[in-house]
């Protein structure tokens, strides 16, 4: 380095190094986890004690009188409710191939208890309203809005079984009305935990254990952690809530996501942050669902209808207390600590619409999550896939909406009369679809994105869970190259040949040299 030019060049090299170093410095997390931990748990302090309000004193004869009392002060809220999904059970959405659709729980089916058509009396217990017992329900009558199911904090309010959304007759409506407040986890859970006919049946990640849980089960809701309530994330403005379930939703709007609180680059390691371009947070941070109680993974309707020796419906329960067979519903497979399946998802979905023809050579998707690697809007998400065998019309090639529920025998409901043919005819009649009289069984699958039961960071997936040759978590997603999993087999084989050939070459050369040298009489 005696040459001055070389000194200058050396300084230039150092400068380049510095610039390169800047490129690899860690980004600062944009949202501080400690600040979030300070913000939660937060106790909401109500500005009004509803038990002191004159409008809520006295006795309420009918639940709709409570609604009137609410609206007498909250004069515009009922208008918001009439436009809400909790009331309409449908959303307007554009679905490629279908155009603009109006779909939701109101007219879509699932592969659990199928659908509400002709079963409103029972299913619509979870409607935020009173009296939706058939398709003549008037969606403009705001008096039938059920404010209490979401806002009763006194825990006395319970909707009745088979009462089309009305509360049980012995509920003290005054206590409920005077105890209203922000929805608690219990309010939301009274429907969302028990959908499908029992705790954790449908979702797998939403269940009664979340009311009182630990951070191992859910870092946000654990009593030893965030102590968060549903509405802490699922914020609402004018009764429009963030977050939706793609079992019945279709469009990419009003979604809830982790980034809202945690920011787009929450990790200290940039390589993890970079994953968020293609991988949803949930994929790594919810390594399993149904952590406390089991969830239904398979439902076989075709075995339903076996009666005991007295001609009565049976119930077979496994050692964990889960139904494995019910005469009215068929057989079930329950699972705990379930590893999700993984799919690309861009926030849009399609559904089976009643009347759609099915291709019975394959498993029928009840809903389809759109997305693929090459779509910049798509990310990999964890999904609970519920598989089922359910009734369909084998002449019309359509899935059947059966009538399942009735109060008494003789009304043609399967759960009372155990006759699929009549149940199918009555159900299809109620929704205005044809039924040929021939029914068969078909295998279906339904996708339930998993978003809850976020595990502590040390339980999140590690690199090897996906970046591995065989049986990685993402083994089913083959439309992209993933380091550690994928390789070009031709290149690898050719490479091995080249390396072995080089080795063989130098070994042969060395052997000949040694042989030649010893023939010359050793020495060199």
């Amino acid at each position: 380095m005696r040459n001055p030019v070389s000194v200058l060049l050396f300084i230039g090299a150092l400068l380049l190094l510095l610039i390169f170093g800047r490129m690899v410095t860690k980004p600062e997390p944009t949202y501080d986890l400690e600040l979030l931990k300070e913000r939660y748990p937060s106790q909401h302090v109500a500005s009004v004690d509803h038990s002191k309000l004159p409008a809520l004193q006295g006795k309420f004869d009918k639940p709709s009188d409570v609604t009137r009392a609410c609206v007498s002060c909250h004069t515009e809220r009922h208008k918001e409710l009439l436009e809400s999904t909790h009331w309409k059970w449908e959303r307007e959405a554009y679905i490629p191939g279908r155009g603009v659709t109006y779909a939701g729980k109101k007219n879509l089916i699932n592969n659990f208890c199928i659908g509400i058509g002709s079963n409103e009396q029972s299913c619509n217990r979870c409607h935020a309203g009173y009296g939706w017992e058939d398709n003549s329900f008037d969606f403009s009558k705001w008096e039938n809005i059920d404010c209490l199911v979401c806002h009763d904090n006194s825990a006395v309010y319970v909707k009745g079984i088979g009462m089309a959304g009305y509360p049980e007759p012995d509920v003290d409506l005054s206590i409920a009305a005077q105890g209203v407040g922000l929805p608690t986890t219990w309010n939301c859970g009274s429907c969302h935990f028990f959908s499908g006919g029992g705790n954790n049946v449908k979702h797998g990640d939403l269940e009664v254990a979340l009311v009182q849980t630990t951070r191992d089960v859910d870092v946000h809701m654990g009593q030893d952690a965030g102590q968060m309530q549903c509405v802490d994330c699922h914020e609402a403005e004018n009764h429009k809530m963030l977050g939706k379930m793609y079992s019945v939703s279709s469009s990419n709007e009003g979604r809830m996501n982790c980034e809202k609180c945690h920011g787009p680059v929450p990790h200290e390691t940039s390589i993890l942050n970079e994953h968020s371009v293609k991988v949803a947070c949930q994929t790594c941070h919810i390594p399993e669902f149904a952590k406390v109680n089991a969830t239904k993974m398979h439902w076989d309707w075709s075995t339903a209808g076996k009666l005991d020796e007295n001609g009565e419906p049976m119930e077979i329960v496994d050692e964990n207390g889960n139904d494995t067979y019910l005469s009215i519903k068929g057989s079930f497979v329950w699972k705990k600590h379930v590893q999700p399946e993984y799919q690309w998802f861009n926030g849009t979905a399609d559904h089976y619409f009643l009347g759609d023809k099915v291709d019975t050579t394959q498993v029928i998707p009840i809903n389809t999550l759109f997305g693929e690697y090459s779509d910049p809007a798509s990310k990999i998400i964890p999904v609970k896939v519920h598989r089922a065998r359910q009734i369909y019309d084998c002449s019309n090639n359509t899935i059947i909406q059966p009538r399942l529920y009735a109060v008494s025998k003789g009304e043609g409901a399967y759960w009372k009369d155990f006759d699929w043919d009549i149940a199918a005819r009555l159900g299809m009649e109620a929704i205005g679809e044809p039924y040929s009289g021939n029914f068969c069984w078909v295998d279906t699958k339904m996708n339930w994105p998993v978003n809850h039961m976020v595990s502590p960071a040390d339980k999140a997936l590690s690199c090897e869970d996906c970046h591995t040759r065989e049986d990685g978590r993402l083994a089913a997603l083959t439309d992209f190259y993933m380091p550690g999993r994928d390789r070009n087999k031709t290149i690898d084989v050719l490479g091995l040949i080249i390396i072995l050939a080089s080795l063989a070459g130098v070994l042969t050369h060395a052997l000949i040299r040694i042989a030649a040298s010893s023939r010359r009489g050793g020495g060199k």
Partner: protein
Amino acid sequence: MMKKVIIYKGFERFWHWAQAALILFLMLTGFEIHSSYSFFGFENAVIFHNIAAVVLVALVIVAIFWHFATGEWKQYLPTFKNFRAQVNFYLFGIFRNAPHPHKKRLLSKLNPLQRLVYLGLKILVIPVMVISGLLYMYYRYPFRGGLKTIGLDGLEVVAVLHTVGAIMLVAFLVVHLYLITTGHTPTSNLNAMITGYEEIEDDGDEI
């Protein structure tokens, strides 16, 4: 008459051995990332590989400046003078204990085959490895609190190119290690790269 001279300067030896260590380490971690075996664990392998890669790029940048500053880059200019003789030496002469056709000189340390191979490494393999490696690392990168991507369709092309380069380097390493033993004595080349000194023939020309 043989004369002992410094054939590899201090920086050259430092550069060579640092580069050797880094490339060996990159091979070890790189083929683990390729899932050829498990040693450090995937996460550590990636972290170590990326750090070693940055250090190697830094070293390469410094070495490039050194070569241009000292004029040593001319050592790698390809020549076909003595090319056939050199090939013949490795194929036949070496077994008969024939003399090296290439006379090492300070201004011409490398024989025609070495020139060609090292030039190939420098203008083909190393750039392919560095560019594909940088794309591998930075095809998405943090930018103003968010993430930017440079819009690659996927990693496949980058990853396969990087693998091809890695395979070439392994093959190079195998042959390179063997050719160390083909100097005047089996250890004279190794000694030269460690101590810097090598005995070269002094036939009166300027060495």
